[in-house]
């Protein structure tokens, strides 16, 4: 059986890739994909712990996270589309009306 640590390291690496992506990528859609990657890394952590602790709470939490992520995706893509309609760009560097 794969030991717990391997899962934890994998999810930590995935989470970090997501977090770095949020800071380095400039396309709003790709930033959102990076955030989804972070959420999925969290799901992996939950499932791994749930399996090794023999406790179902983690499973339930994962379902909640997936549901919330779906709702967030619906809202987030709508926001990105309405931005694109007005400005014809999804590059976050060009979205900078407010400063100071």
């Amino acid at each position, binding site marked *: 059986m794969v030991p717990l640590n391997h899962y934890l390291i994998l999810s930590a690496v995935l989470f970090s890739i997501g977090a770095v992506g949020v800071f380095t990528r400039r396309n709003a859609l790709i930033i959102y994909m990076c955030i989804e990657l972070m959420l999925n*890394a969290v799901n992996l952590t939950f499932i791994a712990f749930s399996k090794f602790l023999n406790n179902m709470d983690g499973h339930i939490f994962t379902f909640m996270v997936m549901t919330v992520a779906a709702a967030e995706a619906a809202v987030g893509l709508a*926001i990105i589309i309405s931005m694109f309609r007005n400005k014809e760009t999804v590059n976050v560097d060009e979205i900078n009306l407010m400063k100071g």
Partner: protein
Amino acid sequence: MEILIPTIKLATIYPEIIITTFAILVLLLQVFPTVIGKDYLGYTSLAGVILAAIITGQGGASGEGGEAIYSFSNMWVVDNYSRFFKLIFLLGTGLTILISIKYTKDEGINNGEYYSLLLFATAGMMLMAGGTDLIVIFLGLELMSISLYVLAGYVRKRLISNESALKYFLLGSFATGFLLYGIALLYGATGTTSLKGISGFISEASFGSPILIMGMLLLLIGFGFKIAAVPFHMWTPDVYEGAPSPITAFMSAGPKAAAFAAFLRVFIEALPSLQGIWVDIIWVLAALTMTIGNVIALVQDNVKRMLAYSSIAHAGYVLVAFVSTDKLGVASILYYMLAYTFMNIGAFAIVIIIGGKGEEKINLKDYTGLAYRYPLTAAAMCLFLLSLTGIPPTAGFMGKLYIFSAAIKSGYVGLATIAVLNSVISVYYYMKIILAMYMKEPESSVQHSPLVFTPAMIIALGLAVYGVLRMGIFPSAYISMAQQSYLSF
């Protein structure tokens, strides 16, 4: 496997049920065209808020003398603490609805969805205050946040509103990632997501487990984003400036209080054994948040943006009370959040009145000579600003007094000194507005369109003025209510 169905006490969630029902009702009602237009949607949701507030205030299902009632497999609690916070949220939502009614008509966004989302956000905040399990708190937080992402971008055609929503959405869900990872690690270290279970486990075993510490730090980051503490505040000014003004008022009061409610409950109830670590971190956050919020606010000309930075600074003051973690500290947080709801929504109400259609007049120069044209409006704004500064006899003064004395009693004299110095800095930028209103002649070159006052707006302003004065002059009733709320922790 045997499945146990827990007893369900629906009575404990009556206020939440009412709010959700009204949210759906408003959504459905707007489908039917009526002869009286759409004004009634706002008033219908207001009725829901008032009904929920009455039931919350009466105690609904809570026990005699404010004893905590647990239900839904100990995932949900009705105690004085959650009731106090729920009343703050409902007050914030009620005032927001009152100041929205004309605004939404002017901007052409007078739809049922607007009020429906406000009510859903309120339901989310109430879940955050009453949840005793990280699952409930997380769901409440997301219900609130997702509704707010939409509301921030509600004026679809306005570019800065889009931008505000996009920034809020990206940074908000980024923060959610951290919060969730923190919860996952806490779950892994303790094997449970219930707050009581976590604190019970930590006090028995594995005090310094690195997973536990990591989890706590990630949770701190997640909550730090939600309360807009420096250095996790980058989103606040842009989001607050771009969002429709009533929504900005709402965001700075209710959701911030909700984030504090969950933050306090999680850290004081679940992680008291790690207090040695998190108190120091919050000390630093508090000092940074106050100082940076106030210093950057000094150079703002846009009043809305200035109030955004001021709201960051106020989160810093609340963190000062958080550091002391004792009864007085928590009571002063409750008191301050209530006072802040009155004074900040009041100030934003005036910003909305002066902003006019399309929110074009939100700069400092639009306030010059206001006292000559509208003495009462200027006086109300002056009162709110004095309260935000912390000058007697206002609610803000008493709030700060309680916070600073809580910090000093717990031995954080250094932090209290920083907080007092920050209050002095803040005088400068609040006074800038007051000076513009009272000491400068109205510029004759600028064409002033007359301000429009609707009955709803006047009621909201009246309530806010009453609240600020009442809490400032007779604070004892409120502070004793706040202190009782801590007892039930």
